[in-house]
């Protein structure tokens, strides 16, 4: 078991390395001149040359990469071209809304989706099952911003239940904070919930057809013990895995959601950065989100140890 844990932790290092390489490479993969890209369409050759020397873009690639890595290691993510502030400070300022949104969405959606999936599998082929599956496919097919606008149209414009947009920081009170988060959470979480519910159902169905479920039934166990102790316990590994994958979707969806609901978080930051070609910011956000995702997957891998005794021994 300890070997497994160690191996998993070590395995994240090359992945993080590759992420760093990819993020670095994107800027240099462009067909054009990176300095020209950063300077913009209307820059003079002089301005481009200035930028090139200022950002060290005239250095050989490996040297640039080494310098960049070194600064990463010391926690320096560069300086925003647009606003001249350190990227780390920008990220810190925008962190709270994004984290609020991401975490609340994840928790609520998992708490909803897993039971739905379990029930759908338990009552397979019933109208509940078909309803769940249909809604799941729908949830997965509608583009996230369309869902956003549908919700806004229905719940904010037509019936004034929730605010149309905006974010209320926690220190202004939990009520306002939660109120502003409802629509964005629903938007962000719908396809996530659909995915989790589907996989939960599929995983449960597979488990429910196993022999040990028959044994459990033959002991006279009731549905609750059957479904939770025997079925879900065995279905947990794929479900937890897909929650991890779903978070990747979530991290991407955060960008759109914040954009639609005008939430001043990291997602909005990156969208603005795209329009202004603010590469340090783009790179910084990519690195942070990827690192979070990799870490989350590591945690999930380590969770397997708890969930599956076959790994432990």
């Amino acid at each position, binding site marked *: 078991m300890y070997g497994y844990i160690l191996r998993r932790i070590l395995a994240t290092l*090359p*992945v993080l*390395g*590759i*992420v760093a*390489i*990819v*993020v670095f490479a*994107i*800027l240099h*993969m*462009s*067909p*054009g001149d*990176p300095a020209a*890209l950063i300077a913009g369409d209307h820059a003079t050759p002089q301005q481009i040359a200035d930028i090139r020397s200022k950002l060290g873009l005239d250095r050989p690639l490996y040297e640039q990469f080494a310098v960049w890595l070194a600064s990463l290691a010391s926690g320096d993510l560069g300086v925003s071209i647009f606003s001249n502030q350190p990227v780390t400070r920008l990220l810190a300022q925008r962190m709270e809304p994004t984290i609020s949104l991401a975490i609340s969405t994840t928790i609520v959606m998992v708490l909803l989706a897993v039971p739905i999936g379990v029930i759908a599998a338990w009552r397979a082929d019933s109208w509940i099952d078909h309803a769940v599956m*249909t809604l799941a*496919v*729908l949830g*997965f*097919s*509608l*583009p*996230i*911003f*369309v869902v956003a*606008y*549908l919700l*806004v*149209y229905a719940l904010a*414009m037509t019936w004034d239940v929730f605010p*149309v947009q905006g974010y209320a920081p926690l220190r202004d009170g939990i009520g306002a904070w939660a109120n502003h988060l409802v629509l964005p959470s629903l938007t962000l979480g719908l396809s996530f919930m659909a995915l989790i519910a589907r996989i939960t159902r*599929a995983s449960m169905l597979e488990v429910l057809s196993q022999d040990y479920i028959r044994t459990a039934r033959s002991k006279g166990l009731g549905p609750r013990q059957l479904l939770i102790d025997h079925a879900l316990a065995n279905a947990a590994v794929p479900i937890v895995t897909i929650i991890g994958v779903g978070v*990747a*979707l979530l*991290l*991407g*969806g955060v*960008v*759109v959601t914040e*954009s639609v609901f005008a939430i001043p978080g990291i997602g909005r930051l*990156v*969208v603005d950065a*795209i*329009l202004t*070609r603010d*590469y340090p910011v*783009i790179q910084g*956000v*990519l690195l942070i*989100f*990827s690192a979070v*995702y*990799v870490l989350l*997957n590591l945690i999930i891998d380590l969770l397997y140890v708890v969930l599956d005794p076959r790994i432990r021994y």
Partner: protein
Amino acid sequence: MTDALHQVGLAGDAGILSPPRRALVRRYPMVVLGAVLFAAVLLITLAAPWLASHDPQEIDPIARLRPPSAEHLLGTDALGRDVWSRTIYGGRISLMVGLVVGLLASALGLAIGLVSGYSRIADAIVMRVMDGLMSIPAILLAIALMSVARASIFTVIIAITVVEIPRVVRLVRSVVLSLREQTYVEAAIVAGTRPARIVFKHILPNTLAPLIVQTTYICAAAMLVEAILSFLGAGTPPEVPSWGNIMAEGRTFFQIAPWLILSPGLLLGATVLAVNLVGDGLRGALDPRIARRM
């Protein structure tokens, strides 16, 4: 008990193998619905020149932001352009992007996956890179790729393809690896069959089924990603009336003219739904064991 149930199972299987058409509809209503829906969207977009009521580019400053009416089926946008016409022309772009990305990602992913499954050295490198690529959330990666390129349909296609390739590679590779363990492949190798022949005769056919399923899902995902990219301003250039762009233009006017976003949006949703349903059906019909190994 397994014996009697086995007979039951066998009786059920015979239906799947050779279905008369009516039984096909009854058995997979959702898939048929999906296929029909997709065919409808495809036909409408292909027949756009005949079905459009106006020239999609035609500006009419007087008739701006009109709600749906007899003359303008889906209303007009901020420049007075007919939304219905723009939508069905825009569908061509979105469908094309979806299909091309699907095929391209599958083809490239297949090639890379085959190599990776076969050569241990290549595998080590390729899988690291793929893992790294998959660790970056898809939209972010696509956005970042678009930020270094000049916006055009071509670059959008490339960007989304790069994002979708890793999943295909993973799938193909896992199939190849599992097939290599099979005794009949070992036998072929021992018998001296050339690797290329083994690949084509034994391995390739087995990758096709899950690959086809995966392609449909990629098409669906690609259409969504393109829409999101365009919506955020990082996708197809503004002149191109893709669904994402139409919706992006409608953003500022949402409160007064919701149809600008909802019409193309729902249509996009319907199309993606259709493709997803077809994909689900294909997965159910083809061997589910292999298709699920992602």
